[in-house]
């Protein structure tokens, strides 16, 4: 069964779109990643123009993250207080990142910096997560990233920073500057790399902010929701590339996928979730590495931004 997408101007198989949405939604619910880094290339592969693919999957991710976040919220996995700080930090970082790209482009080596940054960040992050989680599983310990029974917080220099604040839902105490600055750094990185940063943000919350894995996932979905909502309106207003019919079909699949993902996530321990995320991060890194080393089949590709 085919459907005509009015803004994209192409006809695509309906079930293919629902299936792609379902798969990405599952990952989103399971791991808190937005899924745009997977969905945009999939949509381009099945014939959606790249600019419409990027803008419409941003819109679809609004539904996925709403669904996933609501499921996590009911389970007590969304830290609204910390999430708001992270959201502000992420937006600030993204704005700085856009300027950094402008400077790099003027210097003429932006693409090289972006590619190398991508591979180094993903490679280091994925390897560290995989080793750490594997060791945790082998020890048979629960997935806590810090000693249980006492409030986790910044130690040393971080602990002496001003404006210390308690985040009861996450069970941590930090200076408000720490999550803000860290998230701004991820925002800069995300803007440089052209992705939303979900798969950088979650490990950052777990390892640097010492948040429990499940809360990190729920809180990340919270900030993805608002980021993508803003992006959708901007894309629709400036580029006219949001195809609401396409977004609706993907979202129908992905919201259901996100629900399943969130439920499956409950069956897994924190360390197991970290291993799954680490493997996905390493696969993306490996694909990028192969892509830059091997001589490409085509020297041309459509310009499209991920999330």
């Amino acid at each position, binding site marked *: *069964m*085919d*459907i*005509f997408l*009015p*803004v994209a*101007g*192409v*006809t*695509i198989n309906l079930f293919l779109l629902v299936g792609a949405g379902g798969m990405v939604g599952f990952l989103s619910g399971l791991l808190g990643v937005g899924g745009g880094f997977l969905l945009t290339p999939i949509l381009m592969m099945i*014939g959606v123009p790249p600019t419409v693919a990027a803008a419409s999957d941003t*819109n679809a991710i*609004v*539904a996925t993250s*709403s*669904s*996933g976040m*609501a*499921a996590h919220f*009911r*389970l*007590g*996995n969304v830290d609204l207080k910390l999430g708001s700080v992270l959201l502000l930090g992420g937006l600030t970082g993204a704005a700085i990142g856009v300027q950094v790209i402008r400077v790099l482009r003027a210097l003429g080596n932006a*693409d*090289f910096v972006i*590619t190398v940054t991508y591979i180094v960040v993903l490679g280091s992050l994925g390897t560290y997560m995989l080793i750490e989680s594997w060791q945790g599983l082998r020890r048979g310990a629960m*997935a*806590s990233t810090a000693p*249980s029974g006492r409030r986790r917080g910044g130690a040393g220099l971080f602990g002496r920073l001003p404006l210390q604040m308690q985040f009861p*839902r996450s069970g941590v105490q930090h200076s408000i500057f720490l999550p803000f600055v860290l998230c701004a750094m991820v925002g800069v990185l995300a803007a440089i790399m052209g992705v939303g940063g979900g798969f950088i943000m979650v490990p950052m919350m777990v390892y640097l902010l010492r948040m429990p*894995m499940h809360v990190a996932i729920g809180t990340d979905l919270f900030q993805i929701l608002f980021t993508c*909502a803003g992006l*959708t*309106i901007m894309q*629709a*207003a*400036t580029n*006219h590339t*949001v*195809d*609401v*019919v396409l*977004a*609706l079909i993907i*979202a*129908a699949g992905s*919201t*259901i996928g996100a*629900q399943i993902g969130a439920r499956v996530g*409950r069956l897994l321990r924190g360390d197991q979730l970290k291993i799954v995320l680490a493997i996905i991060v390493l696969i993306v890194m490996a694909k990028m590495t192969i*892509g*830059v*080393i091997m*001589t*490409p089949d*085509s*020297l041309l*590709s*459509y*310009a499209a931004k991920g999330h």
Partner: protein
Amino acid sequence: MPRRDTDVTRVIRSSAVLILLLAAVCPASAGTAQADAAAPTIALEPPAIEMGMFSSGTRLTASGRVADGAQVVVVVAGADARESFNRKARFGPIWIASGQVHVAGVPSVLHVFSAMPVDAFLRRDVIDRELLDATAVIGRMAVAPAEADEPRIRENYVELKIVEGRFRFDADAVHVERLPQGGARYGLDFVWPSTVPPGRYDATVYECRGGEVVGRATAGVAVREVGVAATVRDFADSRATVYGTLAVALMMTLGFGIDALVARFRRTRGRRPGRPGDPRAGKALPVH
């Protein structure tokens, strides 16, 4: 002088009478000559393609008449396009996206149909001039900025368009049938590709003989959106910010709605006698 004028008039009159007599005596031969010299024709069925929300591929038929013994090429083409792409380049040991490359001077859509390869019956300069095969397209396109690997960029562009369904070169698609009363009839039946966007396209039939194009005829085909698809498209263009805001509201409603439905379903299932409820639903879980 007047005598001379009278003679000229007499000669013209005699010639006219002679021509009329010849035409009356040999009607059959005059008819055949007329058919051979007639311009080719093309008709499309349907003449317009309407893209509704659930339109799947539309089958299009092109048919018409050409002179007997002529080869036929049917070309469906869109307006010239200018497109920008990311270009990959080698940077030391790695390949990275390195700036943009702009391609212009070739149609947005180009479908060339014939009964045999066009270079079997047309001269190369004619093929290039009329843009009838991939080599002609590669030669015609303008690539900016000019790069060392420009020949590969040109080839990759055509390959990309063929994969997308925007370009097609089919040398076994047109059927030509000789007519007993003289001339020939051709027919072409193909599915309009779903990846081609709405717009105005031209279908042209080329009558070819002796390595040349000796005649041509063109018919237009309009591909347009209708119904809900057209309404959504207009809304997205004319009230873009409202459209974007509504798109976000719609997605949020869908997301929260599906979550509420799933939660309700799980609660209902949990209340059934003999089935254990989910003790964790609606509670803050210990996360580790």
